């Protein structure tokens, strides 16, 4: 099989940020917790590759640690969506047309009616801003997305002959869902997971930007942008770099998602040709 070009480019692009995030656990050029006012707002140099911010912190190091925050929040939020949404979707498909199906799908519609930011605002209004609440807000919004994709994919599998054979063989809905349905919709879930991951990065950036996400001193890309806004006249560099990081990561994941869809779904590929 030939790997789609987007998949390779996307994997390299987002892989770079994942690597940077992983590397930041072991080593960063300068500690992000140490402020050095003498070095504030320094332009890029051999010592500070991307310059420093208004507290004299190294921008490159901030971006690396910020990648950690973004990726962790988005990843856990996808985890919540999968953990809750996939079983709900499987159950709804297995009991198609039943009251259970109806309740699950109406519940989904209800969550969809709340723009994710509004959910985040509600949660924050109650529990106060934190990275954990950002994860919750983004994660809750992921649940109906995965439930819907799972149900849609599962419904089409349920009509196939080998499912009928499995039922004749005496397997119950739970076993059929786990042994036959789930493996066959895995590709759908992987593609959706990539998309939700990239949306999660964007959402986390937005929430931290308005102060509802990770709290200082934890560096995050959104917070860096918020800090940079007041200094946009004096140090526009500070406003540009974190944004480029967000775009790079999101673009990489989106390209990967498109590439994966092409690679994993032969029907789609044929339709495109």
């Amino acid at each position, binding site marked *: 099989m030939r790997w789609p070009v987007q998949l390779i480019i996307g994997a390299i692009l987002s892989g770079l940020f994942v690597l940077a995030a992983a590397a930041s656990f072991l080593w960063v050029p300068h500690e992000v917790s140490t402020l050095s006012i003498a070095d504030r707002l320094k332009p890029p140099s051999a010592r500070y590759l991307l310059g420093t911010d208004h507290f004299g912190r190294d921008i490159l190091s901030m971006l690396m640690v910020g990648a950690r925050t973004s990726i962790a929040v988005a990843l856990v939020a996808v985890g919540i969506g999968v953990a809750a949404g996939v079983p709900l979707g499987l159950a709804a498909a297995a009991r198609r047309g039943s009251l259970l199906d109806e309740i699950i799908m109406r519940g989904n519609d209800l969550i969809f009616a*709340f723009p994710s*930011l509004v959910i985040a605002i509600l949660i924050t*209004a109650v529990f106060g801003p934190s990275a954990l609440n950002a994860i919750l807000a983004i994660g809750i919004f992921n649940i109906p997305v995965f439930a819907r994709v799972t149900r849609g994919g599962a419904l089409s599998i349920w009509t196939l002959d080998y499912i009928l054979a499995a039922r004749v063989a005496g397997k119950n809905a739970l076993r059929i869902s786990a042994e036959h349905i789930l493996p066959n919709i895995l590709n759908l879930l992987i593609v959706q997971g990539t998309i939700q991951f990239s949306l999660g990065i964007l959402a986390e950036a*937005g929430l931290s*930007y308005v102060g509802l996400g990770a709290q200082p001193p934890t560096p995050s890309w959104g917070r860096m942008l918020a800090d940079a*806004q007041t200094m946009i006249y004096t140090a526009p560099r500070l406003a540009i770099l974190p944004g480029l990081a967000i775009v790079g990561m999101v673009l990489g994941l*989106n390209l990967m998602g498109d590439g994966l869809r092409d690679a994993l779904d032969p029907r789609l590929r044929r339709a495109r040709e």
Partner: protein
Amino acid sequence: MLRFAATRLVSLGLSLIAASLVIFAVIEVVPGDPAAFMLGLNAEPEAVAALRDELGLNGSRAARYLSWVGGMVTGDFGQSYTYRVPVSQLVLQRLWVSLPLALYALGLSTLIAFPIGLIAASRRGRPADYGIMAATQLGVAVPNFWFAMLLVLVFAVNLRWFSAGGFPGWEAGAFAALKALTLPAVSLALPQASILARVMRSALIETLGQDYIRTARAKGLSRRQAITRHALRNALIPVLTIIGLQFSFLLAGAIIIENVFFLPGLGRLIFQGITQRDLVVVESVVMLLVFAVILVTFLVDLAYAAADPRLRHRR
């Protein structure tokens, strides 16, 4: 059609009731006493008691829920604690910023997306198509608030064509007001236009492959005529759906963008409500936003059932 509309109306009502219950419940679980929460740590007990009275917190939960919902239905959204004015009055003022902004952005994104999607679809597989697809891929990845900052950097800081934020009010004249909304609307519209252009392209490509297009071409219509008379109209259904969905994203996006540009809209009102612990404002404005989203979804459902009779009988 009437039956379809009636069933959708019932589910609209149920969604609204469910949403109001969720919002009410969330505000209910605010740790501690809402009145004490709003007044902060150093509040006098008498002040807390007075506020409890004012907020009607002394009744039962059910009574409070009913009076809140009943109030909203009759246009009484309660009294803002910090502003000391009815929330409905605040909302009405702010709506004059948020609604024009959302519509401005929606108009812009549609104006950009339609021609671009059309060009990409009709030049499918050629350089123009690849260029447009690459540009929209980038457009989807750019966070709108960062794009807003870049616009400020270029058009306000360097070129000085626009101010970096603030809103003069409609009293200053439509031109001044629209000018102040232009950068915010553009930054909201860009990611939406990218998504819409992609939907437009794939919808057009799908309809262009239909038999009736071949028939139209066979009876002598030019490619352009076939597109404008037949393909475009049929491709509009998925495009309309996305435009409807985008309205809710625009409302939510506006919450952030209003903060970038210091626009006195509903989004800023919510944030001020949170920082000032004015829960009455947060509760009512959130409900209003959710109501708007549910209503738009309902209208889109009706619109495309009217456009496509097949959808009326499907579940």
